């Protein structure tokens, strides 16, 4: 089952790259949901010979929270705030794809000098999770819209999560659940704040109040 984890890892990076290259926010959310879905499958492949209840639970919770609820919240948010696409990225899309490719190389290069102790599930986990993280950062840094930044943050989280899921069992299940819940609540609060920002925008439309750029409606 080793290679199935590999496939998930590669897909995670692939989808992170496509999130970086997508300009429509709806598309980005869908890609993120797909990425989360593949990640949530990883625990199932971990101990293929003996699927434990813990793995199943983790997979299920991840799938529900990250692949269903978080995208649902994000969709709800963009329905309420009229933010459709990234307009003026700090770095152009073409350049950011090339930078993304370079970042992937960097992630693998860093991983070269890190030897994982103990038995490995897959050698691709570390470089791929680093690459996903870096691509998420790239998305956050180069995009100006609030929603795209949230998505970048979620991609970073997915990268971290990939790493966490497949490497060890040092975390008690309860704490891992706590981590997942925290991230979920974080997105929830971000969505609420965005909603307030949008209301405030509607309220002050046409007045001379200076508005932050990333809140622009259109």
């Amino acid at each position, binding site marked *: 089952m080793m290679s199935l984890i590999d496939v998930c890892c590669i897909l995670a990076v692939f989808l992170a790259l496509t999130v970086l290259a997508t300009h429509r926010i709806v598309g980005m959310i869908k890609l993120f949901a797909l990425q989360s879905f593949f990640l949530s499958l990883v625990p199932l492949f971990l101990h293929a010979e003996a699927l434990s209840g813990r793995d199943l639970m983790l997979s299920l919770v991840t799938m529900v929270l990250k692949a269903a609820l978080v995208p649902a919240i994000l969709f709800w948010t963009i329905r309420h705030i009229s933010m459709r696409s990234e307009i003026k990225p700090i770095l152009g899309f073409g350049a950011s794809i090339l930078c993304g490719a370079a970042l992937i190389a960097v992630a693998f290069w860093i991983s070269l000098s890190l030897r994982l102790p103990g038995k490995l599930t897959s050698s691709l986990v570390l470089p791929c999770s680093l690459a996903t993280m870096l691509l998420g950062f790239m998305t956050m840094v180069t995009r100006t819209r609030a929603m795209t930044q949230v998505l970048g943050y979620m991609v*970073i989280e997915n990268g971290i999560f990939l790493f966490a899921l497949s490497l060890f069992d040092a*975390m008690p299940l309860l704490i891992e659940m706590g981590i997942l819940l925290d991230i979920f609540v974080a997105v929830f609060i971000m969505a609420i*704040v965005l909603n307030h920002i949008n209301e405030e925008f509607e309220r002050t439309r046409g007045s001379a109040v200076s508005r932050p750029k990333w809140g622009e409606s259109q």
Partner: protein
Amino acid sequence: MGGKSVILSFLIAIPFMGALAVLLPVRPLFRRWFFWAVSLTHALIVTFFWALRPAPEWQGYLVLDPLGLILLSVISLLFLAVSFFMIGYFQYEQRGNRIFTACLLALLSMMTLVSVSYHMGLLWVAIETTTLFSAPLIAFHRDWKSLEATWKYLLVCSVGIALALMGTFFLAIAAHDTHTLLLPAILSAAPSLSVNWLKLSVIFLFVGYGCKMGLAPMHSWKPEAYGQATGMVVVLMAGGLTQCSFLALMRVSQICYKTGLSDFYASILIVTGILSLVVPAVLLLSEKNIKRSFAFSSVEHMGILVLGLGLGGLGIFGALFHMVNNALAKVVMFLTAGSIAQKYGSSRVEDVRGIIHTYPMTGIFLIVSLFAGTGMFPFATFHSELLILNASIISKHYLLAGSFVLCLAVIFIGMARIVLAFVYGQPTEPVLAKKENFFMNTTIVVAAVVLLGVGLWMPVSLNRALHEAVTLIGAS
């Protein structure tokens, strides 16, 4: 206290239950007193801990060690002060306080959890949760600026804390053989930890928690958030939240000490510390908003803490002492700034001048804040800063000592410039003419007096706890 002790869990649970309770539709006045009552109970229990340390709970996940005790006491004190201040503050606010109080109580619960958690994963969860509960507090005014500040705080801190999570996982890999992230287990397995992974983990943990602390390159959220949140919230953030992250950094320090990575960690700490002194020194000189300039002062104090931790020995003692002093100084500074902002509806120098003529008491408080915040003589902040300076001279970091003093001097000038402009000059009319309030003023006075008192005479028990804590981090 052998056997099954539940007092720590109880201490975490009370405020959390309280948070749920205040969500009930009751009169705002009741909420204010209820919040004060919970804080008082919390403070009483914590006082009791000074006499009798509680036993570990939850299979060693919750442990109160001297480091935690100091932080817990600081937090408890802050909440007591804020809850008392709030009784007065909300007399003038025509708005509900349901969510506000609930978030404050939840924050108290989570900060308590931070100070007693002995598992690095649990610590992360607790610190992240404090971010989430404090975000709604910043958006108190619900206008553009405060929402923008909330957003910035939420995003920067979430990303920062995500890095800390990665660092926690790296730590788990470094401590692969222990199969747990309980602090004692990691410490006892210290010699067998993988150094490369540990280094990576230390860097990530430092950047992550440092982001939450608002250290210099990651401080961008701080002036915005502190500038927009109400004074009470800022007190809790500047004195409590940031120091919770500092506790995490001290835990890292404990691990580094045991594994012989102290020098590596110290170099990171010292560089960031000095940077956190230089940046606010420069930015303060052109700041026109009192809250923002106090925020830069908070960056400075975080820099001092980190610097002390990095210098080791006497520096650690100084840093721990400074934790207490910084919290008290923040109470004075931000509660004063908060009451000014409430009275004048602004905290910008164009709108507020000549406070001493309109509100003599508040004017005096502002002057006191200046001295307390910049570490002038009679206040305890002076002593802790002196200790850290001393540590840097003992360890022959003369250049460091020189720039430390220089930065403090420049910061004093920057702060004095804006504070004096506020206090003296042609008085401007307050937007909302209000009387001085008993609750608000009492809180500030008591905090200032305690800060002064600790500076003149340090209680024996505090001294002992500080020394115990220092031995935990590993200095002789």
